[in-house]
């Protein structure tokens, strides 16, 4: 079994002092849409490149020297851990500072942190991935892994929703996947333009277009808070067992290793208990506000 399909969890490589980022070079910057870029990076030190591994759904703290850090999902192929991609939407000081970088720039990384998607549970199951907007980023490593191993799961479905066609990230890959027999891809947008001939509406509307073998399905959800809730509930209504629904959550991680307290969701540390949670483990607080 390839490493990324096992349940083992790679530990952070940042060494003795977890607050010291490890330097990495930006190899390429690819614009995904009007406010989102994918940064491909590589650790400067070869010995770090050799030992760094990550599981789909884990995240790194990306560090801009002198500006600060923010948490970003790893969005590249775990089978190629020497180059690491993070898809970054411009929202705050760190992402704005990242935007000013050019290929060759030196940034820092700490990670990988957290628990990722349950790859081991996907064997011989139906896997339905629901992503909204940039929420597809932490799911792309799952897609790469399952597409490398097309016989691993029984069926692979990607339901992807965006505000407009221009909001889509990984647009060219989405097209490739649409032509790939190993995966069924359905993309919907809230607001269509004249060129769009796909579905319009919220992503859960796409559920009508697929038939789900509920007891045998693993559901992976990542998107804005509202999408997470509606998607999770929709699958529960279709009788997917609550311990087969997984959601990746967002909080403002500062340390990454359950020390700083910022990312608490009830009693959970999203950075280390998550960011991917089994629905049944957080059912009591999942839809609570202010928690």
């Amino acid at each position: 079994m390839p490493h990324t399909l096992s349940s083992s969890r790679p530990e952070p490589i940042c060494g003795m002092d977890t607050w010291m980022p490890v330097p990495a070079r930006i190899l390429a910057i690819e614009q995904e849409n009007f406010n989102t870029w994918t940064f491909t990076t590589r650790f400067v030190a070869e010995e770090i490149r050799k030992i760094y591994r990550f599981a789909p759904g884990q995240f790194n703290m990306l560090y801009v020297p002198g500006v600060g850090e923010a948490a970003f999902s790893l969005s590249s192929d775990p089978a190629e851990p020497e180059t690491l991609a993070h898809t970054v939407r411009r929202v705050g000081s760190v992402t704005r500072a990242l935007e000013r970088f050019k290929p060759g720039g030196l940034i820092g990384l700490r990670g990988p942190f957290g628990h990722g998607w349950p790859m081991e549970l996907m064997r011989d199951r139906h896997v339905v991935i629901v992503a909204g907007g940039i929420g597809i980023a932490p799911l792309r490593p799952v897609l790469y892994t399952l597409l490398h191993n097309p016989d691993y799961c029984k069926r692979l479905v990607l339901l992807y929703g965006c505000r407009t066609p221009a909001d889509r990230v990984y647009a060219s890959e989405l097209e490739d996947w649409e032509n790939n027999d190993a995966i069924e891809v359905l993309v919907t947008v809230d607001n269509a333009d004249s060129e769009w001939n796909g579905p319009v509406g919220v992503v859960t509307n796409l559920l009508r277009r697929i038939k789900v073998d509920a007891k045998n399905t693993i559901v992976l959800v990542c998107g804005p808070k509202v999408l997470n809730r509606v998607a999770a509930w929709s699958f529960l209504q279709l009788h997917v067992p609550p311990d087969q629904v997984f959601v990746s959550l967002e909080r403002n991680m500062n340390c990454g290793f359950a020390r700083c307290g910022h990312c608490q969701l009830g009693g959970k540390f999203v950075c280390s208990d998550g960011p991917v949670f089994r629905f049944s483990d957080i059912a009591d607080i999942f839809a609570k506000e202010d928690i």
Partner: protein
Amino acid sequence: MTDANTPPHAFFLPRSGLEDLFQILQSDGYQVLGPTVVNDTVMIRPLESIAQLPQGVSDRQDGGFYRLVDGDPELSFEFVVGPNGPKNYLFPAKLKLLEFHVGNERFELDAGQPDVPKYAFLGVRPCELAAVKVQDRVFGVAEPGMFRCESETWYTLARRQALFIAVNCTRPAGTCFCASWGTGPRATEGFDLALTELRGGFIVEVGSDRGQAIVGRLPTREPTVSELELAELKLERAAEQMGRRLETGDVKELLDHDLEHPEWDKVAQRCLSCGNCTMVCPTCFCCTVEDSTYLADENITRTRYWESCFTHQFSYLTSGPERATIRGRYRHWLRHKLSTWWDQFDMSGCVGCGRCITWCPVGIDLTEEIPRFREGGHAKAENTTQSRGT
């Protein structure tokens, strides 16, 4: 040490021996930290002599109330905890973690290991020892002397070197409720020496080899039976005289059961969200690491500051703060102390020191709040109310 003679259970140190103890600590290279009066408040500070101890000083504490009053002129420890404690030294409110600059291919560290003083905490209270044990767990100390967390360099070193000379509490304050948690008024673990103050001197208990070695150099004698009995009596009475009481048995289930209990709204109307309770709490560990750069030399410093869950930025995401209301923030804090701490660390996050009651500017008192959660509430009809306005 002769192993034929097991060391006696307790010693008696005459009051004059406090000076000897202080000398020993200093000559052993310890920085002595102990209580002293600062701005009409008993604070833990570096001490140069035992004359700085608040002799003849007592305190009155209540919800939102702290005053020093004249006490028994012959006693040096007739007060209890002030706003600060060992946490301020083991886990400082502001700590430089790293200083480095960006080299061509790497981040070049400019500063080596921190120079952590050898602290001797003199007069540390049993609830403080309990709080150190809580923070040990938070910072990754699985067992005494076993530190697994490599990121906590300062805590690890400071904690390993620190000497704890406890003073048992013979007079609790009005906000104390350590007896409810079993964390006081007598220290049972985590100390090197534990003193119980009597008029003429101290009953001394030994809690470690380091403590034993120090006792061997002190002018102690065997305590008399009446001295031992008096100390026992004082500690028993202290337990009875606790100013506050908390029924702890069901408190986790109580706060897990009804997240929408109407009492959260009521307490939120009084809470100012000032964060005082988190700043004086001996177990609160939340923090933020920030970068700063010098314009002159491009050096980068990463500094860790205490953070409070009562601020907006604590839970800030680009969509706004996750806990936007005072109700949500107070609920998070109280549930963390009394409920979710168990989920995270398998122990209580509260030790009963009463500081959050004393230093709350409006006197919110968790020992008064908890019984209100036992009364009324939505019971089974939960999940019906959603978030409210600020």
